[in-house]
């Protein structure tokens, strides 16, 4: 009786899962004149490999550092290294990811063959790192707020949860208006509340604000979901626990700290894991709002996997990203296992 469902799971979940592993070790393309070859870990090396280049300011004959018109030291161009196959084969065809200033005016340049991927990786991790605590915290705050015995409280619960049932695609479209640089609602509201002091920002067109803007919107959409999970955790705490705390004269903070929070431990782990998984699979927001831009500042792993695996028909590249994404998710959930086991 389990057969049909198992068959479906195996064909459409487990088989592609293992295929992703297999494909990530080849150079397969969707349509290709050349036969597929086994290339080992090449895809991963290409994506994850970084090399470090230390450049020093240029010197004149007298041994002084050359300065440009604004008084900044002049550095050799990174291009000189990456285009020069003969002298620097290790840097050939690589691109600059970022620079770090070291002492003595030296600069460390991190080079990679696949900067876009690394940016996607970094953005995805950053997204998860910020969204998880913020969303979980806000959700808990809302749950505590909703858990009060006030008249009509269910109306508020209904409203706070409403964005959850709306598609992320729709939400992303809507927020494109809100974040718009000229007529965006957010700018309007900010200007109103700051009495005109606020300078309008093109939230999604700016490398420094685009990712935070997407983070904020994601929290807005998902916080109700986790509020409900917190709420169901809160409601398993017997009323008598609170009554005991009251009789013993606990303050509101103490009650939360010593009665509520300890009972929520498992809920907390669950909430964190769900949010992390959702955060790692950041996709529709990017697809609808920025398509990775501006200047790759909002690239995400899933978006890159789709771009490569589908739009560029580079099946093996897309699969390799999938494998990395899966390993990330796996380590998170193993970490969760570890957390839950420790204290039981």
């Amino acid at each position, binding site marked *: 009786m389990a057969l049909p469902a198992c068959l479906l799971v195996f064909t459409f*979940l487990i088989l592609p899962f293992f295929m*992703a592993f297999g494909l990530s070790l080849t150079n397969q393309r969707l349509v290709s004149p050349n036969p597929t070859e086994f290339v080992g870990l090449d895809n991963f090396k290409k994506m994850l490999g970084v090399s470090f280049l230390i450049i020093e300011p240029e010197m004149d004959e007298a041994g002084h550092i050359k300065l440009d018109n604004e008084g900044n030291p002049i550095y050799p161009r990174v291009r000189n290294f990456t285009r020069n196959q003969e002298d620097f084969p290790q840097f050939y065809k690589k691109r600059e990811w970022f620079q770090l200033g070291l002492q003595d005016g030296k600069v460390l340049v991190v080079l990679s063959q696949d900067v876009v991927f690394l940016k996607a990786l970094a953005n995805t991790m950053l997204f998860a790192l910020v969204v998880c605590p913020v969303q979980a915290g806000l959700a808990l705050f809302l749950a505590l707020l909703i858990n009060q015995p006030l008249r009509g409280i269910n109306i508020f619960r209904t409203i706070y949860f409403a964005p959850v049932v709306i*598609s992320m695609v729709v939400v992303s479209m809507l927020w494109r208006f809100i974040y718009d640089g000229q007529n965006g609602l957010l700018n309007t509201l900010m200007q109103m509340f700051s009495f005109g002091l606020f300078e309008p920002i093109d939230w999604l067109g700016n490398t420094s604000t685009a990712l935070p803007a997407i983070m904020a919107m994601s929290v807005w959409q998902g916080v109700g979901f986790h509020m409900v999970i917190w709420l169901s955790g809160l409601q398993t705490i017997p009323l008598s626990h609170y009554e005991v705390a009251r009789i013993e004269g606990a303050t509101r903070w103490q009650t939360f700290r010593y009665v509520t929070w300890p009972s929520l431990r498992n809920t907390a782990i669950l909430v964190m894991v769900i949010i992390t998984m959702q955060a790692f699979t950041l996709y529709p927001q990017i697809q609808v709002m920025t398509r990775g831009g501006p200047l790759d500042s909002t690239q995400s792993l899933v978006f890159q996997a789709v771009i490569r695996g589908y739009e560029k028909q580079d099946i093996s590249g897309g699969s390799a990203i999938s494998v990395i994404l899966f390993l990330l998710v796996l380590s998170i959930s193993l970490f969760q296992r570890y957390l839950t086991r420790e204290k039981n």
Partner: protein
Amino acid sequence: MPAHKLLGMALRYLLLIWIAMIFIFPIVFMVISSLKPDLQLLSDSSSLRAFLPVGDISPTNYLSAFDRAPILLFIFNSVLITGITIVFSLFLCSLAAFSFVFLSWRGQGVIFAIILATFIVPFETIAVPLLLIVNNLPWIGLEGIKNSWINSYHVQIIPFIADALTIFLFVQYFRDLPKDLIEASRIDGATWFQVYRRVIMPLSGPIIATAAILKFLMMYNNQLLWPIMVVQEESYRPVMLGLQYFFQLNTQWGEIMAYLTIITIPVLIFYLLLQKAFIASIASTGIKG
């Protein structure tokens, strides 16, 4: 009630209302804007008029949205795909859960563990190889034999029928049903399928509702990545892909708002009617912890 208590109460409500506005304003903006011509829409959004149905209010945007894209077709597609997936998912997943809980067969434990493990595989990570698979699967349909699943309804349905969460929800629920009932029906002479159909399913109302709602949210709202990959023909597109039509040639924001409203409001109404069940179904995913 003493004055300071009254004040505290008022403050709490103020906070609640203020937060409620944060959650509601984009939705209100969407609906209101869908009724305004573009020029007014843009100028209104620099003031609070953005949230008020003032000025030139008309359903024009809706009419031209229908002209621009075959909206009814998209809605039909989405509903069809979601509906069929839900029906098959409920049936096959509950059947699988039934056999995991009530029957004993070799390899049961291992297979259940494997299925549970797929829970942490995000769909996005397998989309690309899955594309390869469906691209090479044959299909026998009304129009004869095809050698690929691309551009069809079933390519959007079949891969999503069975999933770990649905099976798991049913397994949890079945485990809590009294075992005596099943034994009694065995003695009454029921076959395993009869036990499933006549005893277990009639008792599974709550979990069926939960699983259906979760599946609905997963399907209807997320039809983006996969359809982008496997559907090129207009006639099989779901609503989320319909958005593309509104960005070709002179983009009309009012029309976009109208389209967003059309595809969102039914879900919201559905939610408002069944909100207890919606919220309970999300809460029940929390039992896992």
